[in-house]
């Protein structure tokens, strides 16, 4: 067909006609092109909205200053945690933050899950971590920065300086130092666990002193 047109061109009356002439194939081609482009843009606009709208329910609010901490599991699940509930130099205790006024336990978002450890002595903590602890209790996010598992395990490893407890993620064996801002001791985690600053009241209840210091979760 294209050949026919090329052949017929000189025969069809003069240079003016030839210049003005747009060939049928070009019209069809550009129409299809524009059509596809519009369809593509529309699809893109629709695709952007494929991410679900984020609605933050009260129990999904992040921990805030003044929140209490409650047991996240076990027989005393939901009860307020005090310093003495966290065993020293032993496996971590899991906690949810709880709004002190509304009595809302913020367990609607896994990113609020917090783990608590307790040193036998304040000197166990590094100088950076110590100000964020309350009566030797430190709090970290329980979500492993590697691939989002809960840092569930506690392991005691012999070192030259004596046994040293460490936080272990069971998924890919990332290890964190509980006494040094949960820095990475080994394994694939790209970041330490985020620190949750703590304080305590005269009754020994643990109180959140501020938001997590770094971004919680496994997002890069």
């Amino acid at each position, binding site marked *: 067909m294209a050949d026919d047109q090329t052949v017929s061109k000189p025969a069809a009356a003069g240079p003016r006609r030839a210049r003005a002439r747009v060939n049928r194939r070009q019209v069809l081609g550009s129409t299809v092109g524009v059509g596809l482009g519009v369809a593509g843009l529309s699809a893109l606009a629709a*695709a952007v909205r*494929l*991410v*679900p709208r*984020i609605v933050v329910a009260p129990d999904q609010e992040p921990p805030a200053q003044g929140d209490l901490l409650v047991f*996240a*599991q076990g027989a005393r699940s939901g009860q307020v945690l005090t310093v003495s509930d966290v065993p020293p130099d032993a496996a971590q205790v*899991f906690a949810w933050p709880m709004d002190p006024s509304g009595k809302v336990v913020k367990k609607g978002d*896994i*990113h609020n*899950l917090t783990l608590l450890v307790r040193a036998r002595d304040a000197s166990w903590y*590094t100088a950076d971590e110590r100000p964020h602890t309350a009566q030797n209790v430190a709090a970290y996010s*329980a979500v492993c920065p*590697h*691939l*989002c*598992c*809960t*840092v*569930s*395990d506690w392991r*005691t*490893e*012999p*070192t*030259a*300086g004596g*046994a*040293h407890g*460490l936080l272990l*993620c*069971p*998924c*890919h*064996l*990332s290890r964190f*130092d509980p006494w*040094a801002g949960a*820095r*990475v*001791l*080994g*394994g*694939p*985690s*790209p*970041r330490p666990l985020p620190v949750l600053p703590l304080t305590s009241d005269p009754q020994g209840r643990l109180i959140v002193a501020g938001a997590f210091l770094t971004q919680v*979760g*496994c*997002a*890069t």
Partner: protein
Amino acid sequence: MYQWFEERLALSRLQRKYGRKAFPVHHSYYLGELALAAFVTLVLTGVFLSFNYQPSSTLVRVAQQDVPTAYASILFIDSLPFGPVIRSIHHWSADVMIAAAFLHLLRILLTGAYKKPREINWLVGLALLGLSLVAVFTGYALLDDAFAVTATKIGYGIAESMPWAGAWIAQVFFGGVYPTADSLPRLYPIHVLWFPLMIMGLIGLHLLVMVKQKHTQPPYAEQIAPRRILGVPLAPYQLLSSAVLYFLYLGTVSIIAGALIAHPVQAFGPPGVTTPSVKPEWYFLWVYGVLQLIPSTWVIRLPWGGSVGPEFIGGVLAPVFLAIVAVALPFVDTRRNTLRYMELPSEHPWRTGCTVGLLTFFLAGTLAGYRDDLPLSTAWLWALVIGAPVLVTVVAALVLRRAYAGPPDRRPANRLATAFTAGAVAVVVLAVVGLAYLWARPAAPAATTAATGSTGSTAAPVAPGAAAAGAALFQSQGCAGCHTIGSAGGTVGPNLSHIGGTLTREQLRTMITKGNDGMPAFSTLTPTQINALLDYLGSLK
């Protein structure tokens, strides 16, 4: 009856045109059919499951326990007559489909059937394997027990780790930051509708292209009927043998499913706050092993705010690298081919060697997945994952070349050579594993001694006094963050378990005060502190 259809559909003409198509015969040609049999079974059992399953994570109370609705619906399926068996057939069929598809791929690879003109079907096959793996993964999420939530979190994290678009992609497929109420309603249609549809479409294309291009034939066909297709007619013989295969498969998998109920959700319980210690399915174990090996320091910043970390390198880059190699293969390997006949693995020693090396890599990666149970250090596992495949590739290729050198009548017997190759490969693998095991073993008793409460381990005895003070400094100054002594410490810097035997006191002093190649200078230490540290390090021999 036949006449009724014959008058309307002209079945005999259809039979004359297509039914007489010759199908070459070889036992390895049934691997693809086995994968198809498993897929058909998955669809049939999936229909039953989908009628009873509820994709919702809203909590409901079952037997004094709050469990997700989806979890409760699995319990319901398990309470139905034949429910657990049908669910188990679904589970084991997924395993068979992956295994059969992979073996089918190996057959194509080893016999050179990916070469021109069969590139299209090679790519379609790769896509089918990839889709099947993702489909299986989304199936796991639907159980919504503690295991499923953990596995899906990891999948979410891997998807999310892709630079720039990762968060968007992950949130689209997982319904926000997993786990949310939107997650199961999104993963469910992906598992029961979109992936099966895509797989069905590609299977159709796969078969169509195969019929159009003709199947490869075993080499004997060339001697019997050169340049012609030698085989059995599609109908009835090939269809009959396919039916026999299908019913054999269904019978076998039913017996297995009846005996071994797959993944009882009660064993894992509803999702809680903690992570159960679980390993993925066998076909994902190598990725799991590689994920554990990538150190935390492998973070690369990219332009426009992107960055990739260890989870991307282990979870995306490693599989994608293999996928790229596979996709490129038919376009790189453009050697002359026989077109209609299978190439013998023995005639292509390097290709066969690489295939065996690939299998060794999968095995070594799987072994790395058992890192916590094995007395192997990270360095040894790295050597195993990288070194063993290379070694096995070279050994297998050289052995094959030697065994099949010279004119056919003077070669060692084919069977003998094949057995020899297999034996050599097995010996190499066993030797590497055994050596690694023996090498690492002395560390184990040492660690046990230390754990029982003595002042140090036998491998790293700590003298009282200054050395003990040095040991304390080693911890408080953060040395252990980068260096390992005995079985604890970081892996950024060298292992110092035996440093007293390799470096002198003065070399160590310079290293600590001045720093060296990535190690910072610890200039704030007092001379007394440095001497204590040197006493301690010197005692490690």
